[in-house]
């Protein structure tokens, strides 16, 4: 939050429209989320020139009020209204907080042309009983009739609520830093506030010695003041802190906060009398304890930093002071600390102790050493001026800060190339001037020194291009396309195969799902068809999402249940996603779930119901699409959580690549079929398309039917037929499977249509019959098949 009235102390923006300025600042990169203005239109200072009682009321008054341009009759109920006082008048048209619009009206029959106000009615004071009983706000006699009362009271502040990107939230979250940003945008100059003091002869070194025994405190600076008179803060400090949302405590504590909001440097005040005379800054001891300002006893870790009186901790550095050395009403002498601590360490400590304060946030972002100095001087100045402090000569100081300035060398064309714009050397000089970045320009080269307040800028051309670019205005950039070689892009690696499978599955009528990689331990246990263990998150958000899945089937089953519960019928789902095992080995998988009717027309009884063979067909369709015809097979295998009689493994080139089956009725009572195959296995085996011309010679078809044992599966018979059939047998198709009348209970009839053909010649009936008979005899011999109808 930035108070623009406050900023006016450092930069002349008296004539700026603050709303427009906010837009300019936002465009240049500091995002102003909200402009909060206390200004209210149609509010004027008035003087009550007559005050009479209302004839129909025991508490209302009829006033004549001079508002400069005219004299208005206003009915007022406040007990303190009387002739001669100066008051705040809300004229008709004024809109008070709560969207309360003032209108001309009649109050118990008497015309009233406005309202005399109390500050709480304007939202500028808390409405307590005491405030309420005081009645309307009385202005002093110097107030000029007709003018803006809020301006007169100094209450018409405009505040900017900022939402700043991380890199600028150290220098733009304090008023002087923000003034520099405005200065760059408006091309103005910044004036720093007064920080002169008249030190007394005594030297701080007579009172304190300092030792820093940690690497995490590069800079520690302290000054001492004596004889402070604790009291109320001056109005402007109280008002500014309150506008910022900070409660005024007393002049001394307020000054430490005030300076922090000016320079961004948190200060810590110790009561000198409770502190001893040896300051030792060191790493905390593991388990060491301190009672902090808020009265809580805190246990420290060795990664925390503490300020000690040589022995016991008196402050958790950068986070919160100790109760033992707190500034109280009785405090006379103060040690002021202005320091820089390791940002990462402070963030860690603040998070660990759950103590995020204005100070710890600022330390956590990093600080500029120049302002560490400035802030302490400014604090002394204010303490001298507003708390009667006597400032001692000298400082105690530990200084290991690298003060080497960041130097940036570049040529104008580097900025132009980076941004795609055309600036001249002079343009760049103007921009650097606005930024208040000192520079030299020699032989066409800039040499810029980055001010220490801009911690975000690294010495590379990108950073300076950004500064120039944002002031130049990104809206002024041209829209061009990169000057690159013309080429068409393509899908690379697994994405390519994912797209291919996805395209096919969508055209086969399946809906693509997106489900979560992280599943519950219960889900992870389902459909374990591989010998894989799950990777488990050590710190999950919830148990529900604590395990990385190895299969997508349980997730699709959840989607099925979600939709089924909403009365959706005929559910066809697929998902393609990466899975990982406990060694983080990756495998992309294609998973399907199908239930209901694949094709349906109820009134004419057309139905293709989803069953094992349909899902098998879909899988084959994909495998064929990838070019694996005749290279895959399905083998019965029992798989956990699948129907023991209706499931199989899927193999490609005799290597298992997936499973298919009906979900076990104990998990899902509906006829739900699922399948899953490894996309990685497909990727590894794809071969390029080869053209195969159709045979020019006629083919010969022969049918035969066997009676076999019921347990004999078709694949076994086919394998025998294939082997016996040799090269000229080019296709086998099952056209009938029968059990029942004329077939024994433990047997079934299965009929095949065999196709014989050659690419080289016309086959003779005799040679085909020879093969045909061989097939029959092999089947009889090897499987005990009996030829039917023989």
């Amino acid at each position, binding site marked *: 939050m930035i108070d623009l009235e406050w900023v006016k102390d450092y930069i002349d923006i008296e004539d700026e429209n603050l709303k427009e300025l906010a837009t300019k600042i936002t465009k240049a*990169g500091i*995002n102003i989320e909200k402009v909060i203005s206390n200004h209210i239109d149609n509010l004027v200072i008035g003087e009550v020139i007559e005050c009479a009682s209302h004839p129909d009321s025991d508490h209302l008054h009829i006033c004549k009020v001079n508002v400069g341009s005219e004299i208005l009759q206003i009915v007022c109920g406040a007990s303190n209204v009387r002739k001669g006082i100066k008051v705040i008048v809300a004229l008709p048209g004024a809109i008070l907080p709560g969207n309360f619009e003032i209108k001309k009206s009649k109050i118990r029959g008497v015309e009233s042309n406005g309202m005399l106000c109390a500050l709480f009615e304007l939202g500028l004071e808390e409405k307590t009983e005491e405030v309420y009983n005081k009645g309307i706000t009385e202005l002093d006699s110097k107030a000029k009739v007709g003018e803006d009362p809020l301006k007169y009271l100094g209450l018409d502040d405009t505040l900017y609520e900022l939402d700043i*990107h*991380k*890199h600028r939230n150290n220098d733009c979250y304090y008023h002087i830093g923000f003034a520099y940003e405005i200065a760059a945008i408006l091309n103005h100059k910044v004036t720093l506030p007064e920080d002169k003091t008249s030190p007394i002869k005594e030297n701080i070194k007579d009172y304190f010695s300092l030792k820093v025994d940690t690497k995490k405190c590069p800079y520690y600076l302290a000054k001492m003041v004596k004889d402070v008179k604790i009291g109320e803060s001056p109005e402007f400090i109280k008002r500014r802190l309150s506008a910022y949302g900070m409660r005024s405590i007393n002049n001394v504590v307020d000054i430490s906060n005030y300076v922090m909001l000016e320079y961004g440097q948190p200060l810590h005040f110790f009561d000198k009398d409770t502190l001893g005379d040896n300051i030792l800054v060191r790493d905390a001891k593991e388990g060491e304890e301190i009672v902090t300002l808020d009265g809580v006893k805190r246990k420290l870790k060795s990664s925390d930093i503490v300020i000690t009186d040589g022995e016991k901790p008196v402050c958790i550095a950068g986070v919160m002071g100790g109760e033992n050395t707190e500034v109280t009403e009785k405090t006379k002498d103060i040690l002021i600390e202005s320091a820089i601590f390791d940002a*990462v360490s402070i*963030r860690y400590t603040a998070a660990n102790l759950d103590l995020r304060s204005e100070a710890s946030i600022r330390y956590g*972002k990093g600080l500029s050493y120049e302002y560490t100095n400035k802030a302490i001087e400014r604090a002394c100045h204010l303490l001298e001026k507003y708390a009667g402090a006597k400032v001692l000569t000298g400082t105690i100081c530990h200084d290991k800060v690298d003060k080497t300035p960041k130097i940036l060398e570049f040529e104008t064309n580097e900025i132009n*190339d*980076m*941004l*795609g714009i055309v600036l001249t050397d002079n343009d760049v000089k103007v921009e650097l001037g606005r930024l208040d970045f000192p520079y030299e320009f020699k032989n066409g080269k800039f040499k810029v020194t980055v001010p220490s307040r801009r911690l975000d800028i690294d010495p*590379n051309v*990108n950073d300076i*291009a*950004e500064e120039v*670019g*944002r002031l130049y205005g*990104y*809206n002024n950039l041209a*829209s*061009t*396309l*990169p000057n*690159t070689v013309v*080429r*068409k*892009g*393509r*899908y690379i690696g697994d*994405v390519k195969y994912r797209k291919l499978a*996805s395209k096919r*599955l*969508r055209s*086969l*009528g399946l*809906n*693509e799902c*997106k489900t*979560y*990689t*992280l599943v519950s331990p219960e889900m992870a246990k389902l459909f374990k068809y591989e010998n894989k263990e799950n*990777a488990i998150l*050590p*710190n*999950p*958000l919830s148990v529900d999402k604590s395990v*990385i899945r190895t299969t997508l089937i349980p997730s699709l089953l959840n*989607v099925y249940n*979600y*939709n089924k519960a909403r009365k959706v019928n*005929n559910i*066809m789902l697929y998902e393609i996603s*990466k899975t990982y095992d406990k060694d*983080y080995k*990756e495998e992309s998988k294609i998973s399907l779930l199908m239930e209901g009717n694949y094709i*349906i*027309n109820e*009134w004419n009884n*057309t139905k293709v119901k989803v069953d094992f063979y349909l899902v098998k067909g879909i899988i084959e369709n994909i495998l064929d699409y990838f070019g694996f015809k005749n290279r895959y097979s399905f083998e019965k295998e029992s798989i956990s959580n699948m129907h023991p009689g209706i499931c199989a493994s899927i193999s490609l080139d005799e290597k298992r690549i997936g499973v298919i089956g009906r979900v076990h009725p104990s998990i899902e009572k509906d006829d739900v079929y699922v399948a899953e195959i490894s996309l990685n296995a497909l990727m590894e085996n794809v071969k390029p398309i080869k053209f195969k011309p159709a045979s020019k010679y006629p083919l010969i078809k022969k049918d035969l039917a066997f009676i076999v044992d019921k347990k004999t599966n078709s694949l076994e018979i086919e394998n025998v037929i294939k082997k016996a059939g040799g090269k000229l047998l080019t296709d086998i198709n099952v056209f009938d499977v029968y059990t029942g009348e004329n077939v024994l209970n433990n047997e079934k009839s299965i009929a095949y249509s065999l196709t014989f053909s050659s690419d080289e010649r016309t086959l003779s009936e005799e040679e085909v019959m020879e093969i045909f008979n061989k097939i029959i005899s092999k089947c009889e011999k090897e499987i005990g098949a009996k030829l039917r109808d023989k």
Partner: protein
Amino acid sequence: MDKILDELKKELKEIKDLSKLNELKAKYLGKKGSISELSSKLKDMAAEEKKTFGSVLNKIKTDATNLLDEARSKIEEENLNKKLENESIDITLPSTKIPAGSPSILEKVVEEVEELLISMGYDVIDGPEIEEDKYNFEMLNIPKGHPARDAQDTFYLKNEEILLRSQTSPVQVRVMLEGKGKKPIRIICPGKTYRRDNDDATHSHQFMQIEGLLIDRKVSLSDLKGTFDVIAKKLFGEDTETRFRPSYYQFTEPSVEMDISCHHCDGKGCSICKNTGWITVSGAGMVHPNVLKNCGYDPKEWQGFAFGFGAERLAMVKYNIDDLRVFYTNDIREMRSFDRKEAE
């Protein structure tokens, strides 16, 4: 003799089916038919008379045949028409439903971006979702302890070294390392990412990013702007306006946020654009010189830009969806709106 034809014509009028027609044909043209009988008279005639009679007879025969054929086709046509009429169906009865598959809403949006960028020369590539810290953070100019890590609260798997990637940027790192500082790069990396956020209408512990990276010898921020313009117009329509705002990311410098004009209110201000007329859809910038260096590209020689979209965000803006969880619920009733391709 003309009488015969007249009679035939008269009889034909009565005939409605083919068997009767055949009978009639036999009656006139059959062996014992009336015309055949006439021709038997020929043998008793004198040569001259024979000639005249013969030609008349022939004409009658031809005419009779024509008349009968004509009647036959007429009856056949009528029969066919009758048959077709019987086969006529109620075409208003419901169809047989052929299933129509659909992409997930997120994939649909991703594919639109992919399609466009492929045509602009970008390859589409993905990388591992379980990543190493060095690819996900360190090489992207986000060292351990950097505050940028706090915002991307990450699911770590092992010793803060192995993690579920919190962004798709590590894919860019991998591609740059492969390029060994020698090849120009043009890629987009759509993929799943994970952060420790509790799921609600605007947060999801799993989400999809689409990141793009272009590295070449001469690339500028204006080129990024042009590229973004093309993408925005493709996704949100030709009238879409764009703007850049300065922003900050650890791996780009200068960094920008890219806004599109709100297509729901044409920039006038509505609840979707929070009355600003603009919707932020992407973060982007010039690749940070440290990142180029880390990945083997000399920033003196190579420049590049990178941009990132949230697929959920794009879909929410494009289809006016206000709850991010929709994308992971997979309600088929909602998915069915996306089983079609929009004409472009």
